[in-house]
């Protein structure tokens, strides 16, 4: 019986190659392309204020950073509370060039795609270095080792005169083929750039998991002695996981630097690391879709809570203290409730909905 490439209610694969396709059916592909077109076109139709563009850009940058964290914690099983330090490394690579060459130097403003990729590579190198303890440490000890890298990063930036001791290092506006990107178009321009990166890197992640290296990661997570017995090198794989995660974080950091037009160490503190981890978990650890849902959920929640807190603060001023407690309270509650009742994250809901549509009209 020939398989139907357009709709498939269930699993009808007849070859390994078919099972590894990124888009299992043609309908999948069409829907995806439609969605992409929508993402690229909607800012031209709806005008949104700078503040919302800023938030959307931040969400997209967080998605890239969470790609890396998801690879590390979800697929390779190495918990890391130092992810913001990797992102910071990427941002500070750009800042280093700004400090040495001046914030409006040609290299920064014209060759910025190169700078972003370079920041990614530097992030990968740092990731590999941080990953070296992973060769000896396990589980909780590794977690605290990553925490200590985060703290050392914070201290190093704060006390080094080269980085202005943590103060904001300005980055100039970039040039595109049509000339300088001025203030009004700044957030829109970077929306497109970051979206391109998100799509390309998303494909990269999805593809990684089809290859030998991706399967290595999962194998080492599940049982590293068995993986060793099968001929994979668990130590190298772990360092590799840290390096790849560092690459994604470095790219995210460089985009962060360009978008905010400045690099200050306050954007890369411990609570940002915790935030990234929360995004990965609430989204769904170990899934690609999780990397999308997590940042959207957490950052939109932040925004709504801010609005709510302001509303309460305005009209019920006696409850001022309560309104300002909303933010940590909501953040904590969301994490705890998700973990208690839906440990597989929002991606699980997505999976359920998708399966429903895929298998329709059958129930299972």
């Amino acid at each position, binding site marked *: 019986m020939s398989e139907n490439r357009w709709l498939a209610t269930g699993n009808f694969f007849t070859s390994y190659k078919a099972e590894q396709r990124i888009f299992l059916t043609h309908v999948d592909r069409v829907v995806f392309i439609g969605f992409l077109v929508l993402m690229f076109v909607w800012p031209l139709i709806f005008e949104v204020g700078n503040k919302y563009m800023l938030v959307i850009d931040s969400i997209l940058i967080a998605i890239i950073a969470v790609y890396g964290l998801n690879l590390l*914690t979800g697929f390779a099983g190495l*918990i890391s509370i130092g992810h913001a330090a990797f992102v910071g490394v990427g941002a500070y690579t750009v800042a280093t060039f700004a400090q040495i060459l001046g914030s409006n130097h040609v290299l920064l403003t014209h060759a910025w795609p190169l700078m972003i990729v370079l920041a990614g590579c530097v992030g990968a190198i740092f990731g590999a270095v941080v990953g070296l*303890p992973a060769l*000896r*440490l*396990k*589980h*909780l*000890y590794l*977690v*605290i*080792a990553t*925490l*200590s*890298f985060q*703290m*050392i990063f914070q*201290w*190093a930036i*704060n*006390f080094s*005169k080269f980085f202005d001791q943590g103060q904001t290092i300005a980055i100039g506006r970039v040039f595109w083929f049509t000339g300088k990107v001025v203030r009004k178009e700044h957030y829109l321009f970077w929306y497109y750039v970051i979206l391109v990166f998100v799509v390309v890197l998303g494909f990269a992640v999805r593809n990684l998991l089809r290859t030998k290296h991706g399967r290595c990661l999962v194998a080492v997570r599940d*049982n590293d*002695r*068995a993986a060793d017995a099968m001929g994979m090198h668990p130590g190298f794989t772990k360092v590799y996981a840290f390096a790849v995660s560092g690459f994604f974080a470095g790219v995210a950091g460089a985009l962060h630097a360009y978008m905010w037009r400045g690099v200050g160490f306050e954007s890369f503190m*411990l609570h940002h690391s*915790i935030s990234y*981890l*929360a995004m990965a*978990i609430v989204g769904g*650890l170990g899934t690609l879709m999780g990397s999308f849902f997590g940042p959207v959920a957490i950052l939109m929640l932040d925004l709504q809570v801010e609005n709510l807190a302001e509303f309460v603060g305005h009209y019920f001023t006696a409850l001022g*203290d*309560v309104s*300002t*407690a*909303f*933010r*940590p*309270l*909501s*953040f*904590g*509650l*969301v*994490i*705890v409730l998700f*973990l*208690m009742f839906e*440990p597989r994250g929002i991606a699980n809901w997505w999976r359920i909905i998708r399966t429903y549509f895929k298998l329709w009209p059958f129930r299972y």
Partner: protein
Amino acid sequence: MSYFFQLVVSGIVVGSIYALSALGFVLIYKSSRVLNLAHGQIIASGAFITYALTVWVGIPIVISFLLSMVITFFLAMSVERVFLRRLIGEPIISVIMVTIGLMSIIDGIIYMTPFGAGNFSFPEFLPNTPIAFWGVSISWTQFVGVIITFIMIGGFTWFFKASTVGISMRAVSDDQFASMSIGISVPKVFGLAWAAAGLSAAAAGGILGNITGLNFDVLHSFGIIVFPVVIVGGLDSIFGAVVAGIIMGLIQQFAAGYLDGNWGLNGTADVLPYIILLIILLFKPHGLFGIHEIERV
């Protein structure tokens, strides 16, 4: 030379507070394998409860100190019952994240009280003059803090060695199924472990509040320093926590005393615990006194 001794004595004083905080941490890990990142927040709430009892209700400070320990005992036990009971058996990442979530929740609750923003200080109940001996001086509050710390550590050590409940907790941490088969109620032990941790956290908070004054940011950052101490000592060793606490205190004082100001370095006391942590983990991956786990496939 007296400068050196001063540093040593200050290091022991600060280190014993670290040890007391780390004690609670280790207690929870030892019995239920949970890394409690919210411990700093429990210390802070213990400090604030002591303050509230002393200043708002008017109970003399010693009694409110003990009372806050009792209150935090039940507080921690209820936290375990509500949040962590469901997570027995889940992967470690979920449990860590839940404690991180708890951290934010307790933060939020403290912000709802007037303690979240603002500075408070305990009424002074000890003489202000320093205790000086051999060219070294410490304050009365610090001295009392050290005494309390050692009393509590001694108490806990005796508790684990000699009392039935303590031994059953050790049994649970060793092998849950075996202890269940003997008849020990494992969930009850978990609750007790958290409660005991709350007890020591409240004590640490009370002492800390007296020494630094009550400002939530300061107490907040104190919670993070506990981790290197615990890891260096080994996650499941009480003795290790005490030793590591004192070592960290000493290292911080020596760093502040000899490294700061030279070679343009500043604030090394903050980062040195982490560097020492990494170095020690290189040679002893399970901490100084941690039990080397032999994993069976």
